[in-house]
């Protein structure tokens, strides 16, 4: 892989990340003139406590001084204390990170595999019954807010059958040994993962179908057929690799949506990850928490886009071999 390409992408990602850091300051310190006003117990604060809060939040001095203090604290990964729990924000986030990573990771993997498979098949057999059924279904899935899937699953699957727990990360107060606890956690994950997967399956399938159809008209497919390759070989060796390219970038862009999906899905299932933390921070006006969560979400998306650029380079020989 060309080193220049990689370097360019990494520098681009770092620039965007620093843009987010500056933007974050702008949002929480300039658009919001008095961040402390949203502190819940502010009426009870003595003058002394108020001054401590101002110092702790880095709200002293000119905007430029505040900016310097802010940037330094970002580098130290110090995001202050949560208005709500009064604990350091970083600890609150790292404690919840694994649960969310697991939920989003598993469902993204599932969505990509199933969505790309359906999209490939539908695009390859355009106009067939499979195409018409799957495309209509994908349109409906795409039009449904993912948390509504969660509510439906809760009401009609968990509620009616009792096969699945209605929320949480694991059964409270129970200990089934190592394997049992693991199974218990998986049991709790089934419905949230299903919700997120259903929520984004539609758009991934539609994206892949469109790029399959775009490659169908290409000359190299005619050549491949003329060589006498079987239909399945034309598809898997020539059509799919080329159709994957535009899908990779589009899927990377759409991962911003998945973060939104995680927030509502975790809310529906009271799944104690970063999404639920975001929802709670919204209801409690917990600015320090929201500020850090926004930074983390942006960093995650930027990282995911960078990974997508690498995958793109691996898949596309033109980028891979270019110097």
């Amino acid at each position, binding site marked *: 892989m060309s080193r220049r390409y990689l370097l360019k992408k990494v520098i681009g990602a770092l620039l965007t990340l620093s843009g987010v850091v500056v933007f974050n300051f702008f949002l929480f310190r300039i658009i919001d003139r008095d961040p402390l006003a949203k502190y819940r117990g502010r009426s009870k604060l003595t003058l002394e406590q108020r001054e401590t809060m101002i110092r702790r939040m880095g709200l002293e001095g000119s905007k430029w001084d505040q900016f310097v203090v802010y940037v330094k604290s970002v580098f130290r990964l110090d995001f202050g204390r949560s208005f709500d729990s009064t604990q350091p924000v970083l600890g609150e986030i790292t404690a919840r990170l694994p649960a969310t990573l697991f939920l989003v990771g598993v469902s993204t993997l599932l969505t990509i595999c199933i969505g790309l498979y359906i999209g490939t098949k539908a695009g390859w057999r355009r106009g067939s019954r499979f195409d018409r059924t799957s495309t209509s279904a994908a*349109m409906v899935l795409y039009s449904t807010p993912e948390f509504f899937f969660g509510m439906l699953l809760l009401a009609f699957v968990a509620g009616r059958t009792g096969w699945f727990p209605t929320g949480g990360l694991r059964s409270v107060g129970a200990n089934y040994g190592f394997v049992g606890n693991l199974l218990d956690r998986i049991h709790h994950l089934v419905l949230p993962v299903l919700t997120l997967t259903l929520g984004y399956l539609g758009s991934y399938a539609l994206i892949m179908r*469109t790029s399959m159809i775009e490659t169908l008209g290409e000359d190299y497919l005619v050549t491949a057929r003329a060589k006498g390759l079987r239909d399945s070989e034309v598809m898997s060796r020539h059509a799919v690799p080329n159709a994957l390219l535009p899908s990779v970038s589009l899927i990377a862009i759409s991962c911003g949506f998945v973060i939104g999906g995680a*927030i509502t899905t975790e809310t529906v299932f009271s799944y104690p990850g970063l999404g639920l933390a975001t929802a709670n921070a*919204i209801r409690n006006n917990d600015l320090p928490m929201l500020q850090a969560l926004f930074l983390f979400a942006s960093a995650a998306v930027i990282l995911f886009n960078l990974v997508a650029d690498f995958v793109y380079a691996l898949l596309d020989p033109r980028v891979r071999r270019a110097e």
Partner: protein
Amino acid sequence: MRESGSTTVRAMTWARRRRAFSRVWRELRHDRPGFIGLLLLSGFGLFALSAPLIADRSSLLAASGRNNPDLAAPSSKFLLGTDEIGRDVLAQLVWGSRVSLFIGLLATVVAVVIGSLVGLAAGYAKGKISAVLLAIDDFFLVVPFLPLAIVLAVILGRSPTTLAIVIGFTSWAGSARLIRAQVLTLSERAYVERARALGAGSWHVIVRHVLPGVAPLIIANATLIVPTAILTESTLSFLGFGDRLSPSWGKLLDGAQSSGSITINAWWYFLPPGLCIIGIVLAFTLLGRALERIFDPRLKGR
């Protein structure tokens, strides 16, 4: 002389526009998904307009449910039952259609205006201005828009109008990109060069030649922004933004969720608003994709 000349030119322009419009209408009628979308959309439009006929606005007030049973199943009095404080769900659903549509459309106007201005400027201007606009556009494409919308809404306020502006402000980047590409190809066309050679200024070229060329793209794109704006609105409302006393469909789902209607399976409370969101998003998406196909012949057959 001049007077009559300008009216004939205007008449010609209008005749051309009428022809273009009837061509679009003809093609839309034969595009099955697009036509279904249009019908569905008209249905929702009528539903929103008929709100005062179906229920009085006062039944949204918290006090209106005081004498009604809470979370009561559908009956002849309440066709869709009641919510957790005894308010008529149907009344909230029909008035909510106005809130959801208002936020979706206002957000789209904001997004389309910003996206068109940035796209036109970035495509028409060369050099530094274009580079700066592109960098801003890139930034807004990458930054996850829901977290961004959340922090903006927390800082700026939680009212429906603020929500609409925030949603619009976070979802223009894609259309700016599309419009810029179209402007770039249009500026190379012979008729634009001819206008420039005849001494037309930038403003004239943009307004008279480039804008009419990108207008179809802008319209199709706008029709596709509405459904994402409505979905974003329902997500934000579900997370606690918006107004409980004038609830959008998303806000109704928030109420259904937090009142525990799911646990007791009060389907009349959470099913209708969810299905309405699916319906309206589907309608706009089908129509938008059909318009894209009609305006861009390369997309035929998708």
